[in-house]
């Protein structure tokens, strides 16, 4: 079915839907990972975004129930060069098209994704609309300009969990909200580190990695207050990734400020931006973001380079933390942007990239063990 993608700056791209009719709006971004489309589709950080994969052939290995990073498809729409309707992989349980249709997400193909990517690189990530019903460029561009802007909106409320949950049998095991005020809620107290993960849009694999590092993770809604969290007497607090702009999330920054120093804190992606804000730094929107699985990050402590998985459109302004230069732990090798912060006295550290990978390389997986170690030290 014919479709059209319109960008807010007036450029349009012809394409075809492979998921039937529909119309969707969001911010158009690109991801350079060559594998992991299902993880990307279900990553809550992509909420409100239309993702184009730079790798042209997508759908090759189908869809598998194990490869989800949240309970549903999160992207606003999915844009590929050539959709593959004949998946081949021993784990595949269905096609990408069926999966998107079931999740009511529009998928388009036959689009010059490299041209789109180059355009975004030059002009920045921007609002866009894809439609199979409105193929008029002018009206569609107008619609694109109506799409709410990312900056300034709290997108976290669309993706955070409504109810707290533990992690059991590789999926959420929900508990009633009222149990939260009870420090006896932990099931493995003493044997595992009790970690409260504040869910701004957490990826399941973060929970898996924490569990593998010897943590029992209780994931809580984003607006859970500092008092409630403190009452749980956690050994550590994890600040998750999530979609959009950190600045409107003042409630989260306040909570983090109140928690800082009490127990070790570890943050990833949006979690780092919130930690940065809580530490007095500033955040900014970057032109077209980092989305892919090949970003080199230098660990300033060891001098070694990690190849990292990334997905962010906002970042902590390096200059805003200049006076706390001891706090800088990782930088991006490509453009010297801030990739990690660490404060020993607060026992808090965070990274802008995704050590849980999924998709992407496992080079930074050591950070989960590092978090466990900090918690062990804190207890001693």
């Amino acid at each position, binding site marked *: 079915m014919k479709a059209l993608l319109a960008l807010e700056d007036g450029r349009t*791209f*012809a394409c075809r839907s492979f998921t039937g009719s529909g119309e969707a709006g969001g911010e158009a971004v*690109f991801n*350079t*990972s*060559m*594998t*992991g489309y*299902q*993880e990307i589709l279900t990553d809550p950080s992509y909420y409100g975004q239309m993702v184009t994969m*730079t*790798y*042209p*052939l997508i759908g*090759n*290995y189908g869809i*598998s129930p*194990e*490869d989800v990073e949240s309970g549903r498809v999160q992207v606003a729409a999915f844009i590929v*060069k*050539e959709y*593959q309707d*004949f*998946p*081949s*992989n*021993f*784990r595949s349980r269905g096609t990408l098209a069926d999966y998107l249709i079931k999740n009511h997400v529009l998928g388009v193909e036959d689009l*010059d*994704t*490299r*041209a789109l*990517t*180059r355009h975004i*690189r030059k002009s920045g990530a921007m609002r866009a609309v894809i439609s199979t019903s409105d193929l008029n460029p002018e009206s569609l561009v107008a619609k694109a300009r109506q799409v709410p802007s990312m900056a300034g909106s709290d997108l976290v409320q669309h993706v955070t969990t409504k109810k707290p949950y533990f992690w059991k049998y590789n999926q959420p095991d929900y508990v009633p909200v009222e149990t939260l005020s009870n420090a006896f809620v932990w099931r493995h107290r003493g044997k595992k580190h009790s970690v409260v993960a504040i869910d701004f849009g957490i990826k399941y694999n973060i929970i898996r990695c924490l569990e593998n590092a010897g943590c029992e993770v209780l994931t809580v809604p984003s607006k859970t207050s500092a008092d409630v969290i403190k009452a749980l007497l956690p050994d550590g607090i994890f600040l998750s990734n999530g979609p959009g702009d950190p600045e409107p999330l003042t409630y989260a920054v306040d909570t983090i400020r109140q928690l800082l120093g009490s127990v070790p804190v570890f943050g990833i992606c949006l979690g780092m931006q919130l930690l940065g804000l809580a530490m007095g730094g500033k955040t900014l929107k970057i032109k077209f973001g980092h989305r*892919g*699985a*090949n*970003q*080199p990050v*230098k660990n300033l402590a060891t*001098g*070694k*380079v990690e*190849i990292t998985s990334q997905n962010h459109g906002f970042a902590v302004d390096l200059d805003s933390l200049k006076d706390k230069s001891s706090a800088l732990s990782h930088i991006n*090798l*490509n453009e010297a942007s801030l990739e990690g912060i660490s404060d020993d006295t607060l026992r808090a550290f965070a990274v802008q990239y995704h050590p849980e*990978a*999924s*998709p*992407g*390389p*496992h080079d930074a997986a050591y950070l989960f063990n590092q978090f466990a170690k900090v918690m062990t030290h804190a207890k001693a």
Partner: protein
Amino acid sequence: MPKRNDIHKILIIGAGPIIISQACEFDYSGTQACKALKEEGFEVVLINSNPATIMTDPETADRVYIEPVTPDTLCKVIKAERPDAVLPTLGGQTALNTAIEAAKTGIFEEYGVELIGASIEAIHKAEDRELFRDAMNKIGLRIPKSGFAHNFAEVEEVAKKIGFPLIVRPSFTLGGTGGGVAYNMEELNRVAKSGLDASLISQIQLEESVLGWKEYELEVMRDHADNVVIICSIENVDAMGVHTGDSITVAPAQTLSDKEYQVLRDASIAIIREIGVDTGGSNVQFAVNPENGDVIVVEMNPRVSRSSALASKATGFPIAKIAAKLAVGYTLDEIPNDITGETMACFEPSIDYCVVKIPRWTFEKFPEAKDVLTTAMKSVGETMAIGRTFKEAFQKGLRSLEIGRAGFGADGRDLLPDSVAGTDLEYHLSTPNSQRLFYIKYALKHNMPITMLYELTHIDPWFLHQMKQLVDMENQIKLAGKNLPKDLLEKAKKYGFSDRQIAHLTHLTEKQVAQERKLLGLVPVYKLVDTCAAEFRAVTPYYYSTYETECEARVSDRKKVIILGGGPNRIGQGIEFDYCCVHASFALKEEGVESIMVNSNPETVSTDYDTSDKLYFEPLTHEDVLHIVEKEKPFGVIVQFGGQTPLNLATGLQKAGVPIIGTSPESIDRAEDRDLFQAMMDKLGLRQPENGIAHSYEEALAVAREIGYPVMVRPSFVLGGRAMKIVYDESDLEAFFELAVQASPDKPVLIDKFLEEAFELDVDAISDGETTVIGGMMEHIEEAGIHSGDSACVLPPYSIDPHHIEEMADAARAIAKELRVKGLMNIQFGIMNDTVYVIEVNPRASRTIPFVSKAIGVPLAKLATQVMLGKTLKELGFTQQVIPPYYCVKEAVMPFDRFENVDPVLGPEMKSTGEVMGIDMDLGAAVAKSQIAAGQKLPETGTVFISVQDKDKEAALPVAKDFHDMGFTIMATRGTAAFLEEHQVPATPVKKVSAGRPHVVDAVKNKEIQLILNTGATSQTQRDGYEIRRAAIKYKIPYATTTDGTRAILSAIKALKKEPLSVKPIQEYHKQNV
């Protein structure tokens, strides 16, 4: 950490001659390494015996030793040069083995030389299967159940434990020589034997078969700070069981989810760390069970490889260059990424296109060999194609192969449906072979379901489905016929269909399709290979075509010239032509003209992103080239350097209005067309062997009678002496005439008087239209009748009368003038009975240009390019022939050890894959060097076996006498022995194979023979000779199949006995020419 400053002089070991499994990818990686290290201010010393390489140009390294790549040479060069370090990881298995052997002598310790790139320990750990298995177990990785055997008792014992089928892999070999699959004990005995023979340490591994598993390769790089990155993942279309060099491969991996890919990535990193490759690139191969994802490590190469060359071209990431920089101390985060200019080499390339590599086989050259692909590599070259979809890249790859196909069939060359049914079809699907892809197509045409195709081929259903989509599209186009709607045409182009295919399906001409298409605005766009999927701006213009909306080609308004490359390597057309293309590019740069390279061969220097100002990685077909010309609008196109491939395009391109510079296509035709050529010879008063044309056997008979036997019979319009035979009498004529007709149906058969026992010479010349200068004259060691590509030759000539030399030079000048040659020209002369004959004229770059250029120290291809741009030879300062005071010997390297059952006898059809050069002041020593470099182990004592045809007996006598005088024992078959005894040369008689045992082959096996001279006609009655020659190959005993060849070996042995061979850099030799 920055560059080390404790080392200053680095010795790089090259790969030697082009052989199957070790081709010009090592010229590419070696050249990159030399350039990178020179750039860093190191003094670079190089050993490589292959003159056809850019690597051995005197400008590439400071001191270039064109000497045999052997431990002995390495030791001598170390003594002479006192390098601080030796880099052995860029010259393939040959360089690694040479370093390992030399290390055993203690030379590195003695001279305080450090091995950089990989330690001896790491090399051993990766290459020795027992050590490798232990290492893998240590890091929790599985390798196939296996056991080692050193003899047959052990083979049986291990086989019992593993069960059948199993795979035999010899330790320490290249390309899996001698390996194979065995389904039963009988087969195992055979395969195990050849495996034990092939292994340098007489050890084989018997391995659990993972036939049918999916095969993947990852290219890994590590620096000494332990940063590790994966450059590229490659998925083999062919399942396990086919050597990866013989597999169609795709980058990146297509059918792995991220979870499965990361398992392989983690494993690769663990492996490079455990093996201990401190710096540089490695290649890790995995087998993955398609049923459950189980992973098995197949092997690891602790060096750059054919796959790393492919990965470099596929991603734009220059693995060899970076490996060289890492070896001298840099870390990955300190080296910039040349392609983007703004990011660092410490990252993992992301690609936004699909790359398909397809091997090029030459089974037609070896009709006795079975066209079956196994774990021993047989292809001689490869082509790579880039597209935005697999389908597009796959079809581009197929039409780049130079096998006459325009894509995935649909080109009028598909076999007829009823001729490919039933068991024949199933056999060709289930037994991997060079034509299997096309059989898949036939099966799809027959509507064979993908599930069944998968069961027969074990090719992943994903790939089979892609192929099915192509067949479906073909059916749709055919159905639409002449009224092809735009949508469908556009989709067909996106699927990679060529105009030629569409023309065939719609019964239009290619030209009509192109016109129609262009009217509809359907032209390709060019996208960049940029390592980063457009995330960063790329500065290096490396392009491929596709049918999409945005074109990224940055067309300049500079004066520019397009060079058409040679496409995939094959026998008859190899690295020599790439060498010429690269020189053309260098010359253009020097002249301030923009150089644009078009080629489809990933192994080459020409397709390095910084060889030319622009690189179009595209098929060399009329359609694809014309598109580039239309985009770039060049001042001229050079067709005379890339061998036959661009020449075949010349006339068509010219007709389409493309400016061809240099010698005109008409002149090239004039030299190839029989009648025009005859007329020219008559006009210039030159003599050519009597000849005629035959359209039928009766005509052939008449022509042969007229000119007299022996005659040379050959088909017209073929390459490399394909199906060319020498016919001695009428009884053979009919059969060979038939062969010639089969090789080129509907074309006349050419019959020439064969100049028996004539001297043959190759002459390369350069001309600007006015001045013609002889580049070099090469006297063939073998008499006429051996293809010039297979014949050893000497520059300057050593036994030719000066007046003949003068006569040939005059003839060359006259021909050049007559043909208005602007550029290079090659002529073959024969001299018989004091008469000079012109055998062949080719007004274009020849295979010998690099050899001659190295010999005389003048870059002929570069000068020729400058001439094409309008310079005169006078302006360029090259007006005098250079005749060196030393001898340069070129020897061909044959692939007979790769093909079972093939008679290793030389003839008019070219069979060699590569060449080496031996240089010395003394002719014998130069021959000795060439023989050693070509892999012959020349004996200084022992027994020479002589068995010659009656006609060769007279000529063999003095040779036998000399061997006897030098203290060799002569062994001969009865007839020859009697003849020798008669002439006072003592000879021990030995039985022919057909005369009962023990016979001569037993003597070979018992190591009682050290050298073999065996001449034999090619007719099948010569079974005995065949057995002897095959045994010689198997047991690596030097052999000659011509008397002249034996005479050369004799002179070489004499030289060896006189004094040890010396080593000297080419730069020193060249100084003597002034």
